[in-house]
């Protein structure tokens, strides 16, 4: 039971990463590798700030700003430097590794004995693992509401149009470069927050904790889409969070089968690959037709 609660808590916290990547991957239609660097950056910044006596709240805000700064660099390389987005992301991700080491001064920093967002009396009164579920739910609710509002504004619509049809957006006077930079900044800022929260939940930051984050983010997005099908934009935002939770539950199930935690990245990639190929399988095996038949036979 506590394993399932823990998985849900992790799913909620990591959903922030999925939502961040959703902005670039699904709305702007670009694959931003920067997140592999901004996730540990958020963790490194937040943990270092907490150790230096800043409040956990301020530390998390610093993580947001650090992520935004990295996103800005990627955005400038991409739009003004005309570097392919994949390469721009890889460049910043690689550079971020050194920056993160500089921030922490070593490869691993523990939060043992320091206050975190999870160490208030309110959280400590909760049963095991429920604290991260609660924190995750609050943060996800706030972020989702902000995104829902944003996407319905004039600016948000211009942002969506940029990803949907850049030539048309430009012909309507939308400064598409600015939209892309904004998207990359907000996205990576959110990933920074996610890194900060995961580090506080784990009790440490590690220089290598970013490895595989892009696969996890993609998994939340894709699992959400595969599981829930055609949705409106607002519903899709919620589907990302649910996808992130489902992903954690799948991992939990696989680990129960006897795989070790060392196999985690291999399993993550497998789960994602299978989910991404699902539409092809469906077509090849005519599963759609079989499903439809079944529905018919019921009525």
């Amino acid at each position: 039971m506590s394993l399932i609660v823990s998985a849900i808590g992790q799913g909620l916290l990591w959903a922030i990463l999925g939502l961040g990547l959703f902005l670039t991957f699904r709305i702007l239609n670009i694959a931003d590798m920067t997140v592999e660097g901004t996730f540990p950056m958020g963790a490194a910044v937040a943990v270092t700030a907490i150790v230096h006596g800043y409040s956990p709240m301020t530390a998390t805000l610093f993580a947001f700003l650090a992520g935004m700064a990295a996103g800005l660099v990627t955005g400038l390389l991409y739009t003004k430097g005309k570097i392919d987005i994949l390469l721009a992301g890889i460049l910043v991700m690689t550079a971020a590794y050194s920056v993160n080491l500089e921030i922490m001064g070593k490869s691993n920093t523990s939060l043992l004995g320091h206050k975190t967002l999870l160490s208030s009396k309110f959280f400590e009164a909760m049963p095991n693992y429920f604290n991260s579920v609660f924190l995750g739910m609050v943060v996800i609710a706030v972020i989702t509401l902000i995104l829902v509002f944003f996407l319905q504004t004039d600016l948000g619509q211009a942002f969506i149009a940029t990803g949907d049809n850049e030539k048309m957006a430009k012909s309507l006077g939308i400064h598409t470069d600015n939209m892309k930079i904004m998207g990359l900044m907000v996205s990576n800022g959110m990933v920074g927050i996610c890194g900060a929260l995961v580090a506080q939940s784990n009790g440490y930051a590690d220089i290598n904790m970013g490895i595989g984050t892009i696969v996890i983010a993609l998994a939340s997005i894709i699992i959400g889409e595969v599981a829930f099908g055609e949705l409106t934009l607002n519903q899709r935002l919620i589907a990302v969070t649910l996808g992130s939770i489902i992903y954690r539950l799948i991992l939990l199930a696989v680990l129960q089968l006897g795989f070790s935690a060392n196999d985690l990245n291999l399993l993550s990639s497998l789960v994602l690959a299978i989910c991404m190929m699902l539409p092809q399988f469906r077509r090849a095996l005519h599963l759609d037709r079989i499903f439809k038949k079944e529905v018919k036979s019921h009525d």
Partner: protein
Amino acid sequence: MTKPILELKDIVTVVNKGTSNETTILKELNLTINEGDFITIVGSNGAGKSTLFNVIGGNLSADSGQILLHGEDITHENEEDRTHFLSRVFQDPKLGTAPRMTVAENMLLAEKRGEKRRLVPRHMKQHIDKFTKIATTMNNGLEERMSTATGNLSGGQRQALSFLMATLKRPDIILLDEHTAALDPRTSNNLLHATNERITQDHLTALMITHHLEDALKFGNRLIVLNNGTIKADLRGEEKDKLTAENLYEYFEM
């Protein structure tokens, strides 16, 4: 009515500069567009029609020459900034609309053409009735599909929408780049007539590229023949009315 809106002065554009493929497309082209002009533009492939539109639109900068808007130099203004006076409809139906956004959402984007996009709610409800009414003028069922993603529209509906979007916020100049060429003859004809009606009723200033000489003769008050990067003929009023397809061909051979 003869106040110049846009003036192109000695415009030269060169492509593949510095390579063995260097080609001059527009050769010291001069053109004055007056208020209320509806200019049809004809010319063979490679004559520079699209280049001319790209220079006016700002997505291609002239290598020399000057562009004046109401007498003000805008030669170095970029594509996005020129949209405050200019709107365009492209030939490819896919280019003019955002496929995953609905018809109404596309129209709302177009209504704020050239304006700063702010972090304020878009207020779709205040606009939807007006948009539906405007869509009805196209007579192709567009008004029934206001909440449909434009990717699911037919090519004809998409182009009609693109044209509406270009006129939703009154432009000083509208550029129509063979905007009916990708449609079947009937749909194309309907859109052309709707276009003509809208332009003449609202006294819009328009430039329209077409490959159909009959259309070029039928519509507009002014006809331009582009050939080899320069304007070979610029015919207005009676001169244009007297023109036939046969003597228009002669200009092509000059």
